[in-house]
């Protein structure tokens, strides 16, 4: 349809005050202003959000899936990194 594609943008939506912006998806837009408007029309039409961030996808740097085993597997057997080895008094209910 178009010879030149508009760049891709990643959209982050904050669903209500106090929560974090969460990745909602991506879309095409000519610039940041249009990306925010498009995000409003595509991702907040069912009251999903109160705030929008957009960032051009090319600025997102991702870890390499091929390196997943060396990056993430070593954490597998380090259970002591979870704070589960403390003796808690019985009276403490909500930890």
């Amino acid at each position, binding site marked *: *349809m*178009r010879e030149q594609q*508009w760049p891709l943008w990643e959209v982050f939506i904050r669903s209500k005050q106090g929560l974090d912006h969460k990745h909602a998806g991506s*879309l*095409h*837009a*000519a610039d940041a*202003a*249009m990306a925010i*408007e*498009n995000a*409003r*029309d*595509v991702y907040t*039409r069912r009251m999903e959000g109160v705030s929008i961030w957009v960032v051009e996808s090319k600025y997102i740097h991702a870890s390499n899936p091929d390196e997943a085993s060396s990056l993430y597997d070593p954490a597998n057997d380090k259970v002591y990194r979870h704070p589960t080895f403390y003796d808690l008094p019985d009276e403490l209910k909500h930890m």
Partner: protein
Amino acid sequence: MGYPADIEYALHLADNALILGHRNSEWTGHGPILEQDIALSNIALDLIGQARFLYQYAARLVAGQPIPASIGGTIPTGEVTEDTLAYGRDAWDFRNCLLVEQDNGDWGKTILRQFLFSAWQYYFYGKLRLNQDPDLAAIAEKSLKEVTYHLRWSSEWVIRLGDGTEESHGRMEQALDQLWKFTGELFMPAAYEEPLITGGVAVDPGSIRPSWMEKVAEVLGEARLSLPAENTWMQTGGKKGRHTEHLGYLLAEMQFLQRTYPGCEW
């Protein structure tokens, strides 16, 4: 003649919203890009939502009134509802301005039509929300939020296309040439508006012209489009029921189902 002035006025406002909403809905599935297809469909839904509130308001006014012969011919007998008002009247009963019924043309023409009308609605609802009629004031208050976005969205597109490529600039100039002559009517009160304006229950459309002109001049200027001359000839008649050839085709498509299967629901 037709209905009393307050009903004609409500129908005028409702018809404006419904017809432009329907026009925009014709783009659904055909937009130039997915995101804009959704954007324009959202605007269509906003406008049809405004039309529903206004038709419901008109239907409440109609309740208890005899249906005038000029309209009775096309409204099915029985209770007058938002649906019978939208689907049961013929072109000469519609009170929408000519601008909203114009064909979609290309994306540029659709955008410009939206911009010219949203700018009008923006200043119009801004005054209507102060109206002494609580229903009209409430409808205006709710609609103004939607229209504020429509105006922002369409302004940015007018600027993008007008100040874009040679091709897009040329198409916007052409659209301006095609649509400008339908803007004069927006500011001329129809016969049914005059007593209401005097009584303070209708917005004097002439009073919003300076703000509208200022906004339009600002956006067209930024879009490198030249504002048409002050004395351009203006086509009028829509608010009185004298429409361009486009409305009949639009109604034929929009009303087909209710005309063929009256009262049909699903």
